[in-house]
């Protein structure tokens, strides 16, 4: 640097006095509505330590010099290929409804239309909460927000759609399941056993991120500590027997969508990740054995493009430092945040009012992603807030917007284009410092589990959600078409929305009754004694903290014990989590 620090500081003072302040005064403002950054505001002299090269520690500049999609971008355009930019590599569209047979038939129909990705299964809330379809808690919810699933038999019915070229050793599966994740992983393993496929051929990702359920998403069953024991057991089991299966998919996304600030999103996600790493270590694993099988779903997003770019850079740096410095990881693969979705605006940034405005909003999120090491995906489609099911039009616009950012704007042609910006480096440092301070607060409470048990993290998110609402109502923050520019001269641009006929409403209506019949038949036909004895073994093993429960769960699953029967054993031994009061 040719200019000395003192020289710049002196010049900055002069600039403030001669240029900035008179202008602030002229417009009758208390302070300047803009900011300007100089080499003094950022510590740019530590490039190798703080930024480094893309694909190298501390990964601030990106996980890779270029990703898989980038290598094939030109070919895709030349071949008129329609890739699912921003989708989770090889995995199909997230979905699920009705009975297992309803969903299987739907998947087969999708495959006949050329959609051959692996299953990305949404389970109904009944399943997510560890109940069977005939439970009193299930009434009205069977097969609604996902497919109903009670047993290995149901699981096998779904997978009748995946055989031959699409068998489970060839396509990966995604399971959005948390509290009963161990049961679903056991079903996957048992299905492979039935098909004669070695476990080490299985690919996929269970969400298996229970801690964020307590903070945000709400489908917890057991209290945090026994939940972490199940997490530990899945971690060890996957690592030892299913090395190609990802262990979990950690999400800050749900936490931010529930109202968390950027700092809370980053700190809470890191705290959860640390707790999961500690669980694997407690299970007797070496960090480099299993940390590479951790994935991140996505962090949250917002409209504040600069902050979201800084967030991604800071998150990568933080996680890699935690893994290397705190846990002594040596394998770089342990240190990277693998996530299908990077920066984005977050679905809660979309508005019901003048919904086509969500398209430019999503493009801003895509720009943030493209400029911070991700695919510039214009996520979500503009009609996200209009109800379940994106329209064909909205999806087309989303895909085209993404293509325009990639091919025309060439957003992703430079790795970490903000590296070295006085402003961005200083904002990245600030983002990391704030999150580290919050992380330390949680550490002082005893870590993520303790900060859930004492209600700190869930309450903090609720309070932040309310703060945001107050800011919008007080017009301290502006949302176009919601709390400003809503006058008589504004027009609502009309749109065509053809929602692809996805789920048959008639099937949805009758799913509950039909699935209850399936369950009754299963209970009649299975070997009741074998079920009872395997559940008994599970019960006694659950009482021994040192036992890995996965083999016993697999035994229950193989004997056609139901998901609720297995969860009921845990409810009896572990107790149930209580909802957090405000």
């Amino acid at each position, binding site marked *: 640097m040719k200019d000395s620090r003192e020289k710049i500081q002196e010049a900055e003072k002069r600039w403030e006095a001669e240029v900035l302040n008179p202008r602030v005064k002229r417009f009758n403002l208390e302070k300047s509505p803009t900011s300007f950054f100089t080499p003094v505001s950022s510590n740019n002299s530590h490039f190798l330590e703080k930024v480094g090269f893309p694909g190298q520690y501390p990964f601030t500049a990106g996980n890779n010099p270029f990703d898989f999609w980038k290598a094939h971008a030109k070919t895709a355009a030349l071949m008129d290929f329609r890739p699912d930019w921003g989708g989770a590599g090889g995995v199909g569209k997230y979905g699920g409804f009705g009975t297992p047979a309803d969903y299987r038939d739907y998947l087969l129909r999708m495959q006949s239309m050329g959609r051959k990705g692996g299953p990305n299964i949404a389970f109904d*809330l*009944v399943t*997510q*909460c560890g109940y069977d379809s005939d439970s*009193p*808690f299930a*009434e*009205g*919810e069977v097969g*609604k*927000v996902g497919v109903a699933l009670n047993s290995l038999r149901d699981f096998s019915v779904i997978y009748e759609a995946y055989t031959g070229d699409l068998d489970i050793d060839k396509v990966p599966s995604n399971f959005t399941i948390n509290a009963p994740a161990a049961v679903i992983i056991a079903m996957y393993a048992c299905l492979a056993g039935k098909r004669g496929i070695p476990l080490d051929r299985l690919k996929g990702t269970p969400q298996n991120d229970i801690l964020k*359920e307590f903070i*945000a*998403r*709400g*489908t917890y069953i057991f209290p945090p500590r026994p939940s972490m024991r199940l997490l530990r057991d899945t971690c060890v089991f996957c690592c030892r027997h299913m090395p190609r299966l990802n262990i979990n998919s950690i999400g800050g996304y749900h936490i931010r*969508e*529930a*109202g968390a600030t950027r700092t809370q999103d980053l700190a809470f996600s890191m705290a959860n990740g640390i707790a999961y790493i500690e669980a694997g270590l407690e299970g007797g694993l070496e960090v480099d054995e299993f940390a590479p099988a951790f994935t991140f779903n996505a962090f949250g997003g917002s409209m504040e493009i600069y902050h979201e770019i800084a967030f991604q850079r800071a998150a990568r740096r933080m996680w890699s430092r935690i893994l290397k410095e705190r846990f002594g990881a040596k394998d770089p693969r342990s240190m990277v945040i693998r996530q299908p979705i990077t920066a984005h605006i977050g679905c*809660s940034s979309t*508005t*019901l*009012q003048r919904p086509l405005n969500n398209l430019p909003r999503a493009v801003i999120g895509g720009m943030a992603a493209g400029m911070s090491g991700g695919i510039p995906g214009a996520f979500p489609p503009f009609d996200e*807030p209009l*109800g*379940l099911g994106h329209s064909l039009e909205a999806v087309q616009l989303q895909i085209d917007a993404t293509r325009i950012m990639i091919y025309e704007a060439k957003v992703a042609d430079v790795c970490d284009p903000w590296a070295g910006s006085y402003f961005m480096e200083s904002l990245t440092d600030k983002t990391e410092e704030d999150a580290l301070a919050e992380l330390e607060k949680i550490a002082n409470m005893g870590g993520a589990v303790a900060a859930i048990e004492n209600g700190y993290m869930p309450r903090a998110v*609720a*309070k932040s*959600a*309310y703060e945001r*609402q*107050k800011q919008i*109502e007080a017009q301290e923050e502006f949302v176009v078409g*919601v709390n400003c520019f*809503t006058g008589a001269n504004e027009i609502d641009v009309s749109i065509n929305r053809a929602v692809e006929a996805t789920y048959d409403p008639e099937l949805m209506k009758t799913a509950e009754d039909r699935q209850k019949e399936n369950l009754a038949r299963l209970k009649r036909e299975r070997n009741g004694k074998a079920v009872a004895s395997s559940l008994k073994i599970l019960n006694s093993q659950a009482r021994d903290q040192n036992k890995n429960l996965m083999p016993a769960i697999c035994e229950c699953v193989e004997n056609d014990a139901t998901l609720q029967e297995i969860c009921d054993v845990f409810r009896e031994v572990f107790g149930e989590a*209580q*909802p*957090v*009061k*405000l």
Partner: protein
Amino acid sequence: MGQDSKIRVLIAKPGLDGHERGAHVVAYGLRDEGFEVIYTGLRQTPEQIVSAAVQEDVDVIGLSILSGAHLSLTRKVMEGLRAKGADDILVTVGGIIPEQDMKTLENMGVGGVFTSGAKIKDIAALIRAKLSRENGREEDTGISAEPLSRT
């Protein structure tokens, strides 16, 4: 409303849906509007909600539902209230409610439906207006007491 009789509101999450943001925001917001607010927490059955409302002697129930099960869950709460002779309690619903379902909810006797972008002060105004009307006192709040629809 008189100074000493605070309006009592039960914010409730029926069913298994875990999306709490709306419930949290409305609970905090109505508390700051001067109401007495009780929040049930997640996963309450309609029966639990009805008996909590009766036990706590609330004036208003705010149901928050984002799972798509709003029609069946709301219907059960309304029936439960009627069965207990507590159908004087004002019921409002918040969540992702498609436009075509708003009318159905109103026909069930729901006093207000609030979706994304609704303001706390409008929710509070609707509650005050509805309650004063039921008490035979028209109160000019200056804000329409009609349920918010999309604008």
